C-alpha cells in the first residue's frame, strides 16, 4: 500500500482555519482558498483531505447548513478521499457526512460515547471510522486530551488500546505541543505504533527532512499536516517528488 500525506483544515462559520498550538488562524472562505491559495493544486498534491468542523454549537443534532454548502463546494473540485470530523456526536450527522461524499469520519471526544462508535463501525465498517488522539508530554509521559485539547483523558497507551477495542479502523496521533510549529514530529510517539492498524502521525511536520524521517519509521502509514504556509506555491508537489526520489512509497502524481 502507498503511504499518505494528509492535509487537515479546520472550519468555523463560513471560514477555513489552520491550527497553531491548537489555536486557530483564519485563512479565508472557500472562494478565497481557491483563488489565493490555489487549493486545487494542494488537493492535487496530497492523498487525503480532512475537514474538521469546530463550530461551538456541539449540541445541535445535525450539521449546519453552511458547513454542508462549503463541503459540497469543496467536493466539486476535490477528487481524493475526504474525511470529516468535529462534533460528530450522533448517527444522523454521520449519515449526513457520508451522503456529502466523505469516505471516513474522524472522532475525538466522541470516544466516550462507546455505543455511537460501535454502531458506526457496524454500519459503515472499521475502515470508515477513525480515532483522533491529541496528546501532550506531561512529566515525561504522553497524556491524551479530549474536547479540543482542553480535558485530560488517558495515558496514551491506554487510549490506543481503547481505540483498538472499539474497532476503530485507523488512528491519528496529533501532538498538541508541536501542532503547527514546524519543529518536526515528536519521535517519542513511534514506540506506540504497531502493525495492527494504520497510524497517521501529525504535529510539527513542515520540512522534507521531517517527512523522510517519519516515513522511514516502521508502520507509519501517513503523515498529517495542516500548515499551508510551509507549502506555498509548488511546495507540496516538490516535497512529494523529493520523497518519491528517496524511495518513500507514495502515490505517483
Amino acid at each position, binding site marked *: *500500500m502507498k503511504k*499518505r500525506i494528509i492535509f487537515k483544515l479546520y472550519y468555523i462559520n463560513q471560514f477555513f482555519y489552520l491550527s497553531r498550538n491548537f489555536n486557530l488562524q483564519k485563512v479565508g472562505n472557500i472562494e478565497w482558498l481557491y483563488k489565493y491559495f490555489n487549493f486545487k493544486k494542494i488537493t*492535487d498534491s496530497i492523498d487525503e483531505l480532512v475537514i474538521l468542523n469546530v463550530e461551538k454549537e456541539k449540541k445541535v443534532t445535525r450539521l449546519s447548513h453552511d458547513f454542508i454548502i462549503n463541503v459540497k463546494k469543496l467536493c466539486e473540485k476535490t*477528487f*481524493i478521499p475526504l474525511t470529516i470530523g468535529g462534533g460528530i456526536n450522533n448517527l444522523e450527522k454521520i449519515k449526513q457526512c457520508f451522503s456529502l461524499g466523505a469516505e471516513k469520519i474522524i472522532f475525538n471526544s466522541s470516544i466516550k460515547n462507546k455505543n455511537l462508535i460501535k454502531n458506526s463501525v457496524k454500519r459503515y465498517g472499521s*475502515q470508515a471510522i477513525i480515532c483522533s488522539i491529541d496528546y501532550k508530554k506531561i512529566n515525561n509521559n504522553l497524556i491524551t486530551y479530549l474536547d479540543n485539547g482542553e480535558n485530560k483523558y488517558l495515558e496514551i497507551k491506554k487510549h490506543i488500546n481503547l481505540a483498538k477495542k472499539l474497532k476503530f479502523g485507523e488512528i491519528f496521533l496529533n501532538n498538541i505541543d508541536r501542532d503547527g510549529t514546524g519543529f518536526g514530529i515528536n519521535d517519542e510517539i513511534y514506540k506506540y505504533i504497531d502493525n495492527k*492498524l494504520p497510524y497517521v502521525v501529525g504535529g510539527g511536520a513542515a520540512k522534507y527532512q521531517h517527512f523522510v524521517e517519519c516515513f522511514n519509521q516502521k508502520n507509519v502509514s501517513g503523515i498529517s499536516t495542516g500548515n499551508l504556509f510551509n507549502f506555498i506555491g509548488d511546495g507540496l508537489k516538490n516535497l512529494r517528488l523529493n520523497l518519491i526520489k528517496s524511495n518513500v512509497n507514495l*502515490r505517483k*502524481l
Partner: protein
Amino acid sequence: MIGIINTESQNIGSIINCLKYIKVKFRLIDTIEELKKVKLVILPGVGSFDFVIKNLKKKKLYGKKFIKEISKKKVLAICVGLQILFQKSDEGKLPGLNILENIPVKKLDKIGSTGPLPHVGFNKVDLIKGNKKQKEVLNNDFYFVHSYGVSYKQCKFLDAYAITEYEGCQLLSYFKYKNFIAVQFHPEKSGNKGLKFFKHFCDEKKNNF
C-alpha cells in the same frame, strides 16, 4: 450523454462531481426506458453486493431484458459494480448478473491475502494484457476500498486485464470483456489519474479501452 445507473450507492455523488468537472453531460438511469436513450453507461457500486442487486431489482434493471439492453452499451462498472457482473459473491446471498459466468467473487483472504481487510488506500495497477492506450491510462496508483474481489487467475480469457497486489493476493483490478469495462478501484477518488480515466471513458472517439 452518460447514463449513471442509479444503484443508490454512496459514490454516485462523487462520480457526478467528476463528470461535471470534466464537463461531461449525464443523467441518472432509473428505468429500462431511460437506459435505452444513452450509449455510455456507468454502473456504480459501493457497500454490499446484495444492496446493489436489490436496488437494481426494485427498478427492474435486472433480468434478461436488462442484460439484453445493457449489452448494447459501452459500460463502465465500478467497485461493487464490477463484482455484480460475476455469478455470485461470498458477501451476498443474491445471484449476480452472471455476465461473466461461473466465476465467483471471493473474500480477499480466500484468494491469498494475508493483510487486514478491507484493502483500503492507494495501490498500484499493472496492466497484464492490453494495448498501449490502456497501459497509459491504467498503469497508475488508484484508490481502493473493498474486502471482496476476483482472483485474476480465472480471468486470463478476458480481452484485457490488470492486476493489483495486496499482501499476497493478486486481484483483478481492471478488465475489458466485450462491451464491459470494469474497475475494482474508485477513479472518482483517485485524483488526477482518476479524472484522466473518466475523460478517456467518456470520449467516444478515443475510447478504446
